[in-house]
């Protein structure tokens, strides 16, 4: 992989490897001046540009899951990480549901497997991680926040990342919830950033209403997202629904992600959003990881299933 060797057809081997690793089914979006468009992205060319970087998103690893939809979530997580590390991202984000039942041993196993990637990893919790204790155990192990709510932000290569928690203190009849305290913090956190800073928002439950009947949305996403309207490039990375769905709204692009554990049905397809049991040879085509390339204020995403 270190040498670019052209094969007989003139395709360089490095490119060929990357196509193999990331598959042709990947969905690609870019954002420039608020105009999103599909983009054919040559990873090598991007890497050569100054100030650019790549990171990986992994989501819904559900370590501890035992139902028939995937008898081996540890194995599929290991495969997902191998795929991620092969593309050598700068770091990784995990958008929640690290564990299935928030049990200490499940967090231990997840941390142990995640460690094999040898990548700096930024976590946010999913509702499965907070089910027993509002996330106390999760934040002890994976948290980075200075506040008790667990939300935080960080800067990477000129981009500003916001890691939100929308899975605690949920109200009857509702969906995900950020809460007034977190929204205030967000307003304050974004206030001093210049409008040209790429903003990347992480939240487990979708920050737009995908299917409220199944709770696939966040009640107070709209007032929170008012604070990002002045920014030229905003990318929202969610998990929770175990499939890739995207939406563009003004300067904001929204993306849910694959799970590495089990797929879920398309919105409204069937009686409920329960784990989807598919034939064993089809499972890995419905699990996957995401690579995100940031070049100046352009953000390009590639979703790669574990199997084409």
């Amino acid at each position: 992989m270190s040498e670019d060797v052209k094969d007989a057809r003139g395709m360089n081997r490095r490119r060929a490897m990357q196509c193999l690793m990331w598959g042709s089914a990947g969905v690609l979006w870019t954002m420039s001046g608020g105009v999103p468009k599909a983009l054919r992205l040559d990873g090598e060319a991007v890497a050569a540009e100054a100030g650019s970087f790549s990171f990986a998103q992994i989501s819904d690893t559900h370590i501890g899951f035992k139902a028939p939809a995937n008898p081996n979530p540890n194995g599929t997580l290991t495969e997902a990480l191998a795929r991620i590390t092969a593309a050598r991202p700068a770091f990784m984000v995990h958008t929640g549901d690290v564990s299935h039942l928030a049990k200490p041993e499940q967090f231990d196993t997840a941390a142990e497997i995640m460690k094999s990637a040898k990548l700096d990893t930024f976590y946010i919790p999913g509702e499965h991680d907070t089910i027993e204790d509002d996330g106390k155990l999760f934040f002890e192990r994976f948290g980075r926040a200075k506040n008790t709510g667990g939300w935080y932000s960080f800067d990477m290569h000129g981009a500003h990342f916001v890691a939100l928690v929308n899975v605690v203190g949920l109200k009857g009849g509702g969906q995900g919830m950020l809460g007034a305290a977190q929204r205030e913090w967000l307003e304050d956190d974004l206030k001093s950033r210049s409008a040209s800073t790429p903003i990347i928002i992480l939240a487990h439950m979708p920050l737009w209403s995908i299917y409220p009947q199944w709770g696939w949305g966040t009640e107070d996403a709209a007032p929170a997202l008012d604070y990002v309207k002045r920014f030229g490039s905003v990318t929202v990375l969610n998990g929770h629904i175990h499939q890739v769905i995207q939406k563009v709204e003004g300067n904001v692009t929204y993306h849910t992600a694959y799970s590495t554990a089990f797929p879920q049905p398309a919105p409204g397809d069937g009686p409920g959003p329960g784990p989807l049991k598919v034939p064993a040879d089809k499972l890995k085509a419905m699990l996957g990881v995401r690579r995100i390339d940031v070049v100046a204020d352009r953000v390009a995403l590639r979703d790669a299933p574990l199997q084409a």
Partner: protein
Amino acid sequence: MTVYRKNLATTLLCAAMLVALICGAFYMRPGLAASDAKAAVTIDNYAFGPGTLTVKRGTTVTWTNKDDDVHTVKSDEGPVAFKSQALDTGDSFTVTFDKAGTYQYICSIHPHMQGKIVVQ
């Protein structure tokens, strides 16, 4: 003085026993009869079934999770608060309702899942 006191104590004791007897006759028996009652709620396809369950006071209600996903049972509004642990597939949770009233509850991680127990 001692005798008087003894008599007073005896009188009080007798009164207490009488009250207990009357209470037993009018209040405890229905309570005892109702406490044998059992009712079930099934969690299936991200819904509580039946969505509204009406029971007599003292009834023991058991929720059983038949989904491949995890759920909880958490009171939202009502005379007494309750919350289950995470219920994995096949797990159950039981509450005995001694106080009459309407209990609204949710799954704390899927709050669109709502249910109601009416205790008469």
